[in-house]
């Protein structure tokens, strides 16, 4: 019997499970390499060249170059690993979160000050994805 994965139906949310890990292993380990200052410098000097050394898909490499975090997540990235990329760019978690929602950072920050995103209507949809 297959495993049940009801968490696949939560809108706007990708759960980092074993399937995502398999897709994103090298993408996430590339992110870990940015924990070292010397690697951050090498990456900033030549992003495409640095990425070429990691066995990632072309789509993953392009998503990194574009700083398209939703695409990185879709292709197996995990947010705690991807945080190493925006840290390298000198950006905050709130900057990245705003980017992923498509809101301006100011509007996102105001939403948080007003109590955050309301949960209503943002929960599971029925049926398989």
């Amino acid at each position, binding site marked *: 019997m297959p495993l049940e994965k*009801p*968490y696949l139906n*939560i*809108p*706007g*949310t*990708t*759960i*980092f*499970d*074993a399937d995502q*890990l398999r897709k994103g*292993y090298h993408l*996430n*380990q590339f*992110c*870990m390499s*940015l*924990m070292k200052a010397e690697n*951050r410098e090498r990456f900033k000097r030549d992003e495409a060249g640095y990425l070429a050394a990691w066995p990632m898909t072309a789509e993953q490499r392009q998503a990194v170059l574009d700083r398209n*975090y*939703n695409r990185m*997540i879709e292709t197996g990235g*995990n*947010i*705690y*690993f991807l*945080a*190493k990329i925006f*840290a*390298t760019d000198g950006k*905050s*978690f*709130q900057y*990245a*979160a*705003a980017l*992923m*929602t*498509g809101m301006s950072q100011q509007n*996102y920050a105001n*939403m*948080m*000050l007003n*109590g*955050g*995103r*309301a*949960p209503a209507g*943002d*929960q*599971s949809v029925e049926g398989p994805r």
Partner: protein
Amino acid sequence: MARITAGVATSHVPAIGAAIDQGKTAEAYWAPLFAGFERSRTWMREHCPDVVVLVYNDHATSFNLDIIPTFAIGCAEHFAPADEGWGPRPVPVVEGHPELASHIAQSVIEQDFDLTIVNRLDVDHGLTVPLSLLCGQPTQWPVRVIPFAVNVVLYPPPSGRRCFALGAALRRAVESFDDDLDVQIWGTGGMSHQLQGPRAGLINRRWDTQFLDRLISDPDDLAQTPHLEYLQEAGSEGIELIMWLIMRGALSRRVRTVHRFYHVPASNTAVGHLILENAP
């Protein structure tokens, strides 16, 4: 004999650590949050234990995707604050308690919880932010700390039921240690927050409030909550709250609430905080 004297729950948002380190705690954005921990720092000074077993999660800092332990206990003498990509936090090195940690590991494994033993570990904001919130900015931490890391990054994390039962096993382990030690157990992370995707910024005050109520008075039932409910109601990163159940499982069924605090927001996150003592 050693004994568990109290439990503490608190969120461990990295931006809180940055606010402390950069001297921003009095700014309008942060002042209400830090006001909620004033009472806690006083309580901590008056009830400072010998050891804290600090349940937290590593955020792709010391653990990466090569090895992913579900439960890991730090048995080293020292744990250095980690460089998370911005340089290490300017906080003291964390002193461990290798004898008690090794004793807990042996006892808990013999109670059927298969812990991973870690003898070299840098600790990230998940561990150091709660210490800063409760202890302020000392030149040396006033307690020894046993880091207890739980996987909440790769789904599925351990079930709430398993975490709650692990807490009870930790209590038995502590109570079978010969030295006369006061031990607190801290559960960290949460409350509702989601850091990823188009639904980032989710906060659920109503659900968080019920979680706090039930953690105090009905933890056995709360521990049955399925992971899906955390993900839907508290956001993808709200699943960290299972770590609070380990803390609660190590306390008595009846507890006295010394302090309770809730605040929105700290960056992307709802901050919750409890201090609980075993009721007679």
